[in-house]
């Protein structure tokens, strides 16, 4: 009798354990939808309910005009303060045809596994997947997933992000890769190139994802990669990923014309 009771208790304990394991798996698979997707959707619906227009009387019309003018005033004031900063951001891209969306970093993941950054602009603001993300210092990364009001960015220090780059002024082409601990290396660089420590690393026109001319970092070390075949350059990123606060999300060239069609 005691043995069977003990067995029943053990079975219940094991069942509880496996139930929690199953719930953890479900959370892991659907967490991005739950937290960013669903939370973002709920936030958008909440905003629609709270801020929708309800009255059409003259007083309300005047009130709306005042609110509109106040908002415009504050936007113009804000733009006047930030004009220099955005001029710097747009100045380094050399792209006149691209639309850009300014975003703020909401949070970044911490702990044993770090890297993903979440910003406060999403699909309702025009962000699409694979948009390039830059800051005043240089290239930050690429948008990996978009929900209604937020977007997740994979930084260039993530091993799954590769960037075709060129060094300046030496002009050596290479592929920027990240190691699993976040260190950047420019690999497959021609042995004959005259690259030196301190050369800037910029995005090249090859690759198709990143526009050319974006600052990636600086060459901090040169070593032989595959023995006798190519050089491997250590790169110090231009962006401090821990303290980046404001970023720009660059939309593809001609994006709005294509959408308008």
């Amino acid at each position: 009798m005691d043995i069977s009771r003990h067995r029943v208790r053990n079975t219940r304990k094991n069942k509880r354990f496996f139930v929690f394991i199953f719930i953890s798996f479900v959370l892991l698979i659907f967490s991005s939808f739950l937290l960013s997707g669903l939370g973002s959707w709920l936030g958008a619906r909440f905003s629609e309910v709270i801020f929708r227009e309800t009255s059409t009387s003259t007083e309300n019309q005047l009130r709306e005009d005042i609110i509109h003018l106040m908002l415009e005033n504050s936007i113009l004031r804000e733009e006047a303060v930030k004009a220099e900063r955005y001029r710097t951001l747009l100045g380094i891209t050399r792209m006149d045809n691209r639309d850009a969306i300014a975003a703020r970093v909401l949070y970044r993941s911490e702990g044993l596994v770090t890297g993903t950054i979440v910003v406060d602009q999403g699909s309702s603001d025009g962000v699409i997947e694979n948009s390039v993300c830059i800051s005043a210092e240089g290239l930050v990364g690429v948008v990996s997933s978009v929900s209604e009001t937020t977007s997740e960015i994979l930084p260039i220090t993530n091993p799954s992000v590769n960037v075709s780059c060129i060094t300046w002024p030496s002009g050596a082409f290479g592929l920027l890769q990240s190691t699993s601990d976040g260190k950047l290396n420019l690999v497959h660089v021609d042995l004959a190139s005259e690259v030196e420590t301190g050369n800037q690393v910029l995005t090249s026109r090859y690759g198709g994802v990143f526009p050319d001319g974006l600052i990636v970092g600086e060459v901090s070390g040169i070593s032989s990669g595959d023995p006798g075949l190519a050089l491997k350059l250590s790169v110090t990123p231009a962006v401090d990923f821990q303290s980046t606060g404001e970023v720009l999300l660059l939309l593809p060239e001609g994006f709005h014309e294509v959408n308008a069609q």
Partner: protein
Amino acid sequence: MRFRIVLLTFTVFVQFILELTAGRIFLAPSLVPLVLVYFSENYGNIWAVDGAFWSGVVLDLLLHQPLGSSSLAFLTGLYAAKSFSKVSSGAGRGYLLSMMAITVSVSDTVFILAASRPIGSGFSPVLLIVIPRIVITVLTGALLLMTINRITEMRSRKVTGKLHVQG
């Protein structure tokens, strides 16, 4: 019961602070598995399993990690430790420290594999970071056990001293 909830809550909070401070400089010891091992040895599996799940969920929310990764890691680590306890006949400090080391090693490995994006990309030399973390955690656990033993000894000396005086 209140003591267990407070202890686990406090540990989760301290772990969060450590990840933001020591974790950014080098490595933070993994304290939650220590407390879960203590629960499983003294209060049974239910406390340890529930504690592993909820502390994992809270930590993921605080550290902005994929939800479910920490709880999956802690539960797996506990399972490994329990499997070890079934095959070993140990007791005492060495046995507890071995349980802690196994829990931390398995939970950190599972966490890195589950939390890295894309999933599974953590299966790389980054897993080597688990080794120094086990060392730091076991040292922290040994220090805690020594401190608790000392306090217990001092309290028992006080009590036996009183009995002796009364006798």
